[in-house]
């Protein structure tokens, strides 16, 4: 019970900070910035110390609603503790980076008190989501994460596009949230399940379990931006770049992957459920990678690449490779934070997100250029960067479990990933400058964060041994084996997928450099492929039509609204009478 106090601190320090920071902000801006950093640092340290507290058993912190048997329970096993540590540490780095990056927003009249409060709330909710064993607490944190993403995506609230993007993110992820609610209510009413650790396939009727599994699947698809609910994530790029980094690396999108990994042992027996994860994941990976290639907007390329990498993770969970999926989540968090923050430096220096308006920045911004290059190498999976190890483990696991078709989809995706990453790097940092004015490397706090993340992207794979051992020791119900670095290296060399990414990375680099310009011109002029991608593979058009129909029908139903309070209350009364009569007669 000694170390669990860190877990509680890790959850409640940022939540407290979210309340304190705006109050300090009333007095002084400088004190507010210092307070935000301090709370971020305490949170990061607490999440790292939480790693000392890992153990397989849930801990009851507080008997919350005793008559329902609901408590505030934490389960500090490796799965949750690593999610929390990622959220805490990367969240802290983002707060530090924000100090310099968001200064201009204050001059434009946007409240940074609101910004820091929401960021801390976001981080705290994500840590709570990872550590909660109690389903009720999990649900509250899950919804809080959704709320914060909505508010932060539309942070530049005077921009109509930002407001729309925030609303879209909220509406689309809501579809998944309803799935989660249905799943939780079904589990509670059928089996009295109120915690993740109490979720046991044996005690629940098969059809209810199926309903819950579908709900969890829907929730994960919404939150982790999988096909067909991935459309909100690219639009979410209207957010400040720091928020994009936070959403893509530390919080939000990791929640869905975490949820399916967490529920895997109980739902694995359903058969169709892991299959669905495999296919959704691998199709998402490919579709998103193809979308990324046609994007002119630097941040949207990165957004699609996140969707694609999340597809890998979801597919890995479907293959039963919990370790590989979570290790890739760690790698992705690091190199995606690095890519976004390097992109942020570039965007601030050049003043546009359009890659056709950049170019030649390699000599002008050497630090951002090298940081971005390391991020690209990690994402493509070049050996000795973290992405190589985790992606290799992941591909091996999918192949090893005998899922050939999803494996091939993922290998093709690796090729496309290499292509769009090289394309982005080339368009931004090479060639002749296509913008006016001088561009310089970012100020010191931003650059320091980039250096830290670059180092992490090059070395985080060294953690594989302890990472897998902790998982194996604290997650007895999950199919996780401890795996040392040498054993992992041998496994990678033994399976044929070992050399595949190497070859395709080289090939696609050649492809981009040799044939890029001609293809690029056609993309820019709007070829059929580019148009298909920009319509979100027709999904956006479909959702828009659906939304318009809904709005129309609402307009038509307006005439039933009298606006008279007496009549409305009488209507409510009539409704209650009908429900009571139906229940009494037992018609349902």
């Amino acid at each position, binding site marked *: 019970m000694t170390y669990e106090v860190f877990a509680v601190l890790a959850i409640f320090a940022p939540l407290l900070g979210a309340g304190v920071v705006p109050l300090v902000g009333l007095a002084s801006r400088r004190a507010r910035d210092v307070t935000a950093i301090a709370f971020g640092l305490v949170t990061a340290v607490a999440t790292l110390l939480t790693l000392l507290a890992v153990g397989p058993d849930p801990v009851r912190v507080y008997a919350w609603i005793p*008559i329902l048997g609901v408590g505030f329970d934490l389960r500090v096993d490796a799965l949750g503790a690593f999610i929390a540590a990622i959220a805490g540490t990367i969240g802290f780095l983002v707060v530090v980076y924000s100090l310099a990056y968001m200064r201009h927003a204050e001059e434009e009249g946007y409240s940074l008190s609101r910004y820091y409060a929401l960021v801390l709330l976001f981080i705290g909710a994500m840590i709570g989501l990872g550590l909660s064993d109690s389903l009720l607490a999990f649900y509250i944190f899950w919804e809080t994460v959704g709320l914060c993403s909505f508010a932060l995506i539309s942070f530049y609230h005077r921009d109509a596009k930002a407001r729309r993007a925030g609303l879209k993110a909220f509406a689309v992820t809501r579809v998944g949230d309803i799935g989660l609610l249905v799943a939780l209510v079904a589990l509670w009413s059928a089996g009295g399940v109120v915690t993740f650790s109490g979720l046991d396939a044996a005690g629940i009727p098969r059809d209810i379990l199926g309903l819950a599994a579908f709900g969890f699947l829907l929730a994960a698809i919404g939150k982790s931006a999988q096909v067909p609910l991935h459309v909100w994530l690219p639009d979410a790029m209207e957010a400040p770049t720091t928020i994009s980094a936070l959403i893509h690396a530390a919080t939000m999108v990791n929640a869905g992957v975490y949820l399916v990994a967490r529920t895997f042992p109980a739902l694995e027996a359903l058969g169709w459920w892991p299959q669905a994860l495999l296919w959704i994941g691998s199709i998402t990976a490919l579709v998103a990678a193809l979308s990324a290639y046609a994007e002119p907007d630097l941040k949207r390329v990165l957004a699609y690449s996140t969707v694609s990498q999340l597809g890998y993770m979801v597919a890995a969970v479907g293959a039963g490779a919990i370790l590989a999926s979570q290790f890739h989540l760690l790698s992705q968090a690091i190199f995606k934070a690095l890519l976004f923050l390097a992109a942020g430096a570039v965007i601030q220096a050049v003043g546009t997100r359009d890659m056709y308006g950049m170019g030649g920045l390699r000599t002008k911004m050497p630090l951002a250029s090298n940081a971005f290059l390391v991020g690209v190498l990690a994402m493509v999976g070049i050996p000795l960067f973290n992405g190589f190890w985790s992606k290799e483990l992941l591909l091996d696991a999918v192949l090893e479990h005998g899922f050939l078709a999803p494996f091939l989809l993922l290998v093709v995706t690796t090729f496309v990933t290499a292509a769009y990453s090289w394309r982005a790097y080339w368009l931004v940092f090479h060639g002749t400058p296509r913008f006016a004015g001088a561009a310089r490397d970012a100020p010191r706090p931003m650059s320091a964060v980039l250096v830290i993340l670059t180092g992490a992207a090059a070395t985080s794979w060294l953690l594989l041994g302890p990472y897998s051992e902790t998982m194996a020791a604290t997650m007895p119900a999950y199919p996780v084996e401890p795996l040392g670095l040498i054993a992992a290296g041998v496994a990678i060399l033994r399976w044929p997928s070992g050399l595949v990414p190497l070859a395709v990375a080289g090939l696609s680099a050649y492809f981009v450099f040799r044939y890029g310009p001609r293809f690029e011109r056609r993309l820019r002029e709007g070829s059929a492929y580019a148009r298909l991608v920009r319509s979100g593979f027709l999904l956006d058009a479909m959702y828009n039509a659906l939304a318009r129909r809904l709005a129309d029908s609402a307009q038509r*139903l*307006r*005439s*039933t*609204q*009298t*606006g*008279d*309070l*007496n009549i409305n*209350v*009488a209507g409510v*009364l009539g409704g209650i009478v009908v429900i009571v009569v139906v229940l009494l007669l037992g018609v349902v």
Partner: protein
Amino acid sequence: MADGFLALNLGFAMALFALGLFAVVAKESLIRILLGIEVMGKGVTLAFVTAGYALDQLGTAQAFVFTIIVIEVVVTAIALAIMIRLQHATGRLDIRAMRRLAG
């Protein structure tokens, strides 16, 4: 004795609730409607206490009653604020003055 006592209490609770509901459905003055809501709340509170007594869970029932009291205070405060605004805007406290959302 206990049964008669319970029936009396529950009957009184229902009567209070019905009285309040009548005010909410039939009255046009916002003040009267607010009073009706309050009276309904008292009926519910009484029902909770009675049920808690009958089921020997007075502690739980009291927890709910305290919650109801707190919520009623909030409702009253917000309702009064709305009424003051309505009085300023229209010069009356009639709910017919609030029909601008009618379709």
